[in-house]
């Protein structure tokens, strides 16, 4: 078997995806915007007394999260759906590359891009934090955990972007992914509604509520803004969840892409 070749090819595809993403100017605009927001957070904090740190963490991390999702969607869609539409894929698939290797490679490349992104944007947040607080406190370490959770969110969003790209046009893929991001951010309330509903509608609601990505639990921004600790059990569970959910979306993407007739 050609398992060495398989891993190598996935690696090449991932690296190339990363390279394409990094050279796309859209990326830089968005990062710049996010950094701008971190700077703005400092100003907002100055207006209200005693909550500068709160505002910097809240606004900064929200910016990282939101912009990251936008980047994930734009670049994710651009890198896959567009690639299929523009027939760039013809010459790639005419090589000894399996379709599933392509999907998995794209996923790694995409998430790699986002991790690097997050790193740069996080630096901005920490610099702003340093500016307003003049020193780092122990509770600032939890901000790192919140960032880790944001990266887990990105994993899920990337996997979903790839999933939709495997069968849908670029525009629709972006719309679906963003819609699921919004719904997923309200997932806990959705489950609350679903538990109350009775009968067949209730079963349906419960099924949907559990299938939707649970992004609300990954949003620890408020908690770390107030300096609360995050229980380690929760960190573990959320990691497992994000990995499992991403695996689900990616395997779905693979299955669909396997039988897709390319226009």
């Amino acid at each position, binding site marked *: 078997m050609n398992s060495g070749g398989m891993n190598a090819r996935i690696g090449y595809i991932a690296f190339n995806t990363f390279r394409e993403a990094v050279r796309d100017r859209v990326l830089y605009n968005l990062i710049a915007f996010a950094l701008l927001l971190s700077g703005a957070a400092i100003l907002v904090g100055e207006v209200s007394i005693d909550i500068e740190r709160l505002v910097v963490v809240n606004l900064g991390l929200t910016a990282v999260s939101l912009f990251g999702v936008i980047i994930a969607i734009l670049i994710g869609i651009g890198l896959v759906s567009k690639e299929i539409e523009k027939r760039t894929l013809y010459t790639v698939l005419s090589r000894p590359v*399996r379709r599933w290797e392509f999907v998995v490679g794209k996923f790694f490349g995409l998430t790699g891009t986002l991790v690097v992104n997050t790193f740069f944007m996080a630096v901005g947040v920490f610099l702003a934090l340093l500016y307003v607080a003049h020193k780092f406190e122990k509770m600032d370490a939890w901000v790192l955990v919140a960032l880790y959770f944001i990266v887990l969110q990105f994993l899920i969003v990337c996997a979903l972007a790839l999933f939709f790209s495997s069968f849908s046009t670029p525009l629709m893929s972006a719309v679906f992914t963003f819609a699921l991001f919004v719904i997923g951010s309200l997932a806990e309330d959705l489950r609350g509604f679903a538990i109350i509903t009775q009968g067949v509608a209730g079963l349906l609601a419960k099924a949907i509520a559990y*299938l939707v990505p649970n992004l609300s*639990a990954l949003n620890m921004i408020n908690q770390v803004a107030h300096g609360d600790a995050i229980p380690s059990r929760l960190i573990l569970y959320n990691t497992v969840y994000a990995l499992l959910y991403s695996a*689900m979306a990616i*395997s779905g993407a693979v299955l669909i892409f396997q039988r897709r007739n390319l226009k």
Partner: protein
Amino acid sequence: MSMSVTRRVNLVATAVLACSMTGAMATLYAIDHRRRTTVAQEALYLRSSKVLRRLSLGYTGLLADIYWTRAVQYFGQQHHAGSSDFRLLAPLLEVTTELDPRLFPAYEFGANFLAPKPPNGAGLPGSALALMRYGIEHNPGQWRLYYNLGFLYYIELKDYAHAADAFAQGAQLPVTNQFMPVLAAQMAQHAGEFETARMLWRTTYESTKDTQIQENAVEHLLALRVDEDVTQLEQVVKKYREQTGRVPLSMGDLERAGFIHGTPADPKGRPYKLMSDGRIEVQDSEGLYFITKGLPPGATPPRPPQVKPSAK
């Protein structure tokens, strides 16, 4: 040979899909369990409704609905867990009504569950009153809110005068309910009587769609029945003593003397006990949660029922 390559990939992918889906849902269930209490607290990190308004980008209605759902679930969960801590209820309801002053179920919920002492409620009659007044200020034509206010004054604060006022005001609205004038009149003439309270609870029961409120009303009606029964029976004992000069020894005595027919029993079907000092007691206070009479001296009513979180 190569057909099986495609098939093999499909097989692996399907297996991964199935396993990860079930795994993800299972993990989610576990996460939910741990997060239950934190959700409500997180909801109140942003207590300023002005900030919330801006953040909601105009979708204040939706946000109000979300907060309302959280308020109901929070109360139900605490109640279910037998907790006495309801401190987040008032802020949750306040934020809800600030975001959407016309979310009427929130006022009703507040009227029923903000004022009573824990573990039946949050024990904040002042907050409850403030909430009702806020609602009336923003919705002056809504008879329901006057009902809630009057109810609050009567049941929790025992302020019969203000209760009568509230019902009278509600009765005079252009759009009102048929029992408002009835209740106003009842309030004015028969404040403090069992019948009045019974009317109120029955009205509450019939006019609400919220199952928690309904169950609460039923419990109160049962308790009223018991209180009334015990009062009447104790009156009977008194008359017997006056007539015969003796203390009755059993229910049978009272029956033979013609004061009662049959064996009086509580709404659960358990016969009342006649104590040696002439008091009447319930046989078993299990299931009778709001009774104020018929209990041994120094005893308190049992804990409220374990209600499952529900809404609507």
